[in-house]
């Protein structure tokens, strides 16, 4: 910034009203605030959706699942030994043995497919779903069951009701065909993670009840492993390490094998939305071009005088770009604040809720990521800078003599 540019800039900072109240300036500022606001709100909501989905996915499902490659169950001794062996790995936070299989839940004529998981509530192993129990209790005794919120609602069941669980056992064959095992449970808890697929199919019972339904000896079908937070994104690497140390008798599956595709899709959608909304900023840039052109026309006199007095076109261009740039940058920051407010309002509003069966989760959450805000600012500032400099090029072509003659 040379002395002339500094002089005009400080003069402008002292009394910016004359420029700010110009009609074109008002529309330029509004355009930037609105477009950046929408861009920012869109990204905040998508970021929130991505984070919520990931949080729910990682909260509802184990980060690693260990099973026998042959499909057989673990005996109790084997389970203890495996848990002991795996605990030595620093990446692992928690290991929960579980029994898991598909059943049918029935209420008179209503039948729904469900996924029954049996846990050991003797206190020997930890269980991690307690935070998702929205009603009732999380620790079970024999004959008690926890039901997913959507499943309970679809079956018309509530806390304290009886729920019939049906499992087709191959050892119960009558003259009329296969005879399923039927068990009656009392609903003592409602599970609601926010992830539709889980809430629509979840059933939790004691492992003893699960074993007796399957008519098997005491044991577990799988080990659910939760990793320390810092290792969650490296689950595939940790799984490979464990697989290497356990050998081919066991199979270790990371969460990324089941859910990473969904998260990648959401991330891709987020950036697609970002690119589409960037076009809004570009459209607002047309207002910037119009405002700068108006200023140039308005200040033709001034430009002629400055050129006559020996000022260079470059200096005049920079002088004007600082003035418009300052307003545009303030508008971008205001737009980002507006975007944050907009996403907060959308998050808190109670009128529209996501459909869990379509969007996997049923609540809108906004997340303001500093990195995203920096990207929005950089992209918007670059687009606006381009739009400021494009019309300023005409100052180079302005001949002093033409300017003076036209006055």
């Amino acid at each position, binding site marked *: 910034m040379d*002395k002339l540019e500094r002089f005009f800039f400080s*003069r402008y900072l002292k009394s910016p009203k004359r420029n700010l109240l110009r009609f074109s300036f008002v529309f330029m500022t509004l355009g930037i605030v609105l477009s950046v606001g929408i861009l920012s709100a869109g990204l905040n909501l998508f970021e929130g959706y991505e984070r919520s989905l990931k949080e729910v996915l990682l909260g509802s499902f184990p980060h690693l699942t260990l099973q026998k490659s042959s499909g057989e169950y673990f005996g109790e001794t084997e389970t203890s030994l495996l848990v002991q062996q795996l605990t030595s790995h620093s990446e692992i936070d928690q290991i929960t043995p579980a029994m898991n299989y598909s059943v049918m839940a029935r209420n008179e004529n209503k039948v729904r497919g469900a996924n029954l998981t049996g846990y050991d509530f003797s206190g020997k192993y930890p269980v991690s779903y307690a935070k998702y129990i929205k009603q009732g209790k999380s620790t079970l005794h024999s004959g008690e069951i926890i039901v997913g919120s959507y499943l309970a609602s679809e079956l018309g069941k509530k806390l304290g009701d009886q729920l019939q669980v049906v499992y087709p056992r191959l050892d119960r064959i009558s003259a009329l065909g296969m005879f399923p095992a039927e068990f009656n449970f009392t609903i003592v808890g409602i599970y609601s993670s926010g992830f539709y697929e889980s809430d629509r199919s979840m059933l939790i019972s004691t492992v003893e009840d699960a074993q007796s339904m399957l008519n098997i000896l005491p044991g577990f079908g799988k080990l659910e492993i939760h990793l320390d937070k810092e290792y969650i994104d490296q689950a595939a690497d940790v799984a490979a390490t464990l697989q290497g140390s356990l050998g081919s008798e066991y199979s270790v599956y990371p969460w990324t094998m089941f859910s990473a595709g969904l998260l990648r899709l959401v991330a891709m959608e987020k950036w697609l939305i970002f690119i589409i909304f960037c076009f809004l900023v570009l459209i607002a840039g047309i207002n910037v071009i119009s405002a700068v052109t108006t200023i140039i026309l308005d200040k033709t*006199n001034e430009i002629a*005088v400055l050129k*006559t007095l*020996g000022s260079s076109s470059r200096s005049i261009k920079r002088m004007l770009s600082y003035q418009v740039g300052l307003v545009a940058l303030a508008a971008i920051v205001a737009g980002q604040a507006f975007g944050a407010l907009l996403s907060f309002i959308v998050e808190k509003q109670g009128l529209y809720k996501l459909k869990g069966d379509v969007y996997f989760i049923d609540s809108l959450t906004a997340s303001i990521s500093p990195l995203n805000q920096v990207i929005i600012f950089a992209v918007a500032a670059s687009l606006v800078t381009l739009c400021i400099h494009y019309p300023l090029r005409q100052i180079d072509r302005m001949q002093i003599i033409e300017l003076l003659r036209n006055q």
Partner: protein
Amino acid sequence: MLCIAGYNLCKSYNDSNQNIQVLRDSTLEVNEGDLVCITGQSGCGKSTLLHILGLLDAPDSGRVVFGDREISSSFPEAPSIRNKELGFVFQFHYLVEDLTAKENVALPMIISGISSAKAQREASTLLGSLGLGSRLHSYPNQLSGGEQQRVSLARALINRPRIVLADEPTGNLDPEHSAEVWQMMQKLNKDRNQTFVIVTHDIESAKLANLTYNLAQGKLNLLS
């Protein structure tokens, strides 16, 4: 000592497919301390001649000599010469509306790289000497026509140029303010040996100059 000169200057314009020759082989020499007036009818090319001498326009042919060097508006040093060695006063004051009288006068100094504070101090002193000490902080639209033109004159003088080129400086003023500006230019010419080239259609005022030319049919004729 030669201050500025234009030799064999020719300039023509195209207007509605018609070629209008406004300068035909015109020559003008201005020495240090001269107060030169150029008169002529409207549209005869007086302003064009002044613009060529002021490096704001280029002749079709001919040359402009400034001191001892030939110069043209297309030379890279032309803006610097316009800033430091030439002063301009126009019929319309062309003051920057958003700046005060003092800031307007300080502009050429700030453009030449002098700090704003120092330039404004110099401007205050100069405006004081031109009788505008009480109008330093007034905006152009708060000044009378005569005051506006005096501020414009102060702006032309702030960098102590070798020559001031004035294009109809009183053309837009009433007789009282017009006389005021002419007296000021005469005083500056006498007291500071300031060289002036003034374009005017006011024959009476032009008689105050020590050299008066008439421009007619593209040719300069010495009147007195």
